[in-house]
């Protein structure tokens, strides 16, 4: 068996084995070829090599071999990134082509995806809200009159040098939203000769919530009206009925509502069970055997809603609408 044939047969061994022992094996073969002359010996050598090949292959694959000699380490600095060459062999052309193709494909896919419109979801479909949305929702919640009064009182005390009512800070009076109600309904009086005004009752206010960023957020829900005023209106239960005029003088005291009401300014009866919660206004009126139950909501010009009239003849319900009395 020639050296070339045996070199080809050595390709059946693991690469690590060949890297480690190929030259030694070929040298050993050359030594035997040199020492074992003659046809019979050469034939025996060929037979030995074939048997050896069959018997040694499994063991060669079971063995572990030391890793290839490492590249001489370049000086490395602690913390500094560095690269080490793991393979001395140059990259094959196929590897370069496949890598280039994959890179171009990935880049094209990225460009295609980025060109498409991105759907905007203002709210989580599950109902979760972002912290900013929660804060804005909290700020836009309508304040009760008590809360507004408390805020106004605090603002008033914090600015005692000013004359009159000038809420400052979180609750501010917007000069563009001037109240047209009579001055006495504002319930702000000043002590004569005194530099510091005395806060008797909160003035009718429009609450403007000023955000921390200086932007002023105003929504209909944040505007509260004081119902302390004179109100006029009418109601009619069915189309055949005449209009029943209404005239009310309401006095708001925190969440409680008092005052009088009747068909006109001169005929008045006391109201009871008056209550103001946010924009809702409710009170009862007793005239003779008839009980009027008002369930109103403060809207654009004044309280609107329904009135239920209970009398010995039965119960009737009608829509009622008020506007500020002139």
């Amino acid at each position, binding site marked *: 068996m020639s050296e070339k044939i045996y070199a080809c047969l050595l390709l059946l061994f693991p690469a690590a084995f060949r890297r480690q022992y190929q030259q030694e094996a070929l040298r050993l073969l050359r030594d035997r070829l040199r020492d074992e002359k003659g046809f019979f010996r050469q034939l025996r050598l060929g037979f030995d090599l074939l048997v*050896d090949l069959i018997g040694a292959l499994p063991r060669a694959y079971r063995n572990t071999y030391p890793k290839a000699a490492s590249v001489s380490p370049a000086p490395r600095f602690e913390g500094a990134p560095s690269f080490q060459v793991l393979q001395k062999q140059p990259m094959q052309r196929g590897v370069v082509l496949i890598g280039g193709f994959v890179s171009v494909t990935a880049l094209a896919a990225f460009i295609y995806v980025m060109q498409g419109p991105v759907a905007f979801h203002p709210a989580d479909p599950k109902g979760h809200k972002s912290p900013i949305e929660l804060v804005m929702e909290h700020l836009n919640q309508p304040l009760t009159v008590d809360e507004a009064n408390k805020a106004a009182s605090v603002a008033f005390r914090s600015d005692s040098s000013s004359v009159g009512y000038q809420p400052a800070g979180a609750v501010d009076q917007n000069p563009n939203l001037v109240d047209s109600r009579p001055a006495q309904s504002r319930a702000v009086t000043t002590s004569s000769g005194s530099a510091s005004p005395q806060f008797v009752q909160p003035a009718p206010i429009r609450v403007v919530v000023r955000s921390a960023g200086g932007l002023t957020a105003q929504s209909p829900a944040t505007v509260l009206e004081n119902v302390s005023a004179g109100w006029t209106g009418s109601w009619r239960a069915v189309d055949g009925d005449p209009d029943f005029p209404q005239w009310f003088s309401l006095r708001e005291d925190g969440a409680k509502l008092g005052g009088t009401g009747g068909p006109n300014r001169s005929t008045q009866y006391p109201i009871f069970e008056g209550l103001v919660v946010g924009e809702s206004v409710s009170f009862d009126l007793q005239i003779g055997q008839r009980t009027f139950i008002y369930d109103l909501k403060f809207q654009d010009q004044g309280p609107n809603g329904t009135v239920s009239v209970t009398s010995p003849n039965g119960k009737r319900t009608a829509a009622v609408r008020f506007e500020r009395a002139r």
Partner: protein
Amino acid sequence: MPKRRLEPLPSAAFQILLSLTDEDLHGYGIMRQVEQQTSGRMRLGPGTLYSSIQSLLEDGLINEVDRSGERSAADQRRRYYRLTTAGRKVARSEAERLANLLRVARTKRILRGEYV
């Protein structure tokens, strides 16, 4: 103690250990020594020889010797191997095991004549 790869010790590995008991040898020298000590019954081919050498190296039974100060350039290119202390112990225990086998065979009257 980790289990050795060469357990039980193959015949070729045992012969290689025995060949290295007297002196350091290269691959071809080991092959010739094994052939000589087995009276020509065992001729290690390159595959068997170097696979066994690799296993012995992994188990630390032999190690490779630096022979850079060797007399000829051809000898300098060759790899020489030396028996380690562990390899000598393993060879001795294997020989004792074979001796016990011989003793058993002798009591069984399997071996006769000048072999024993």
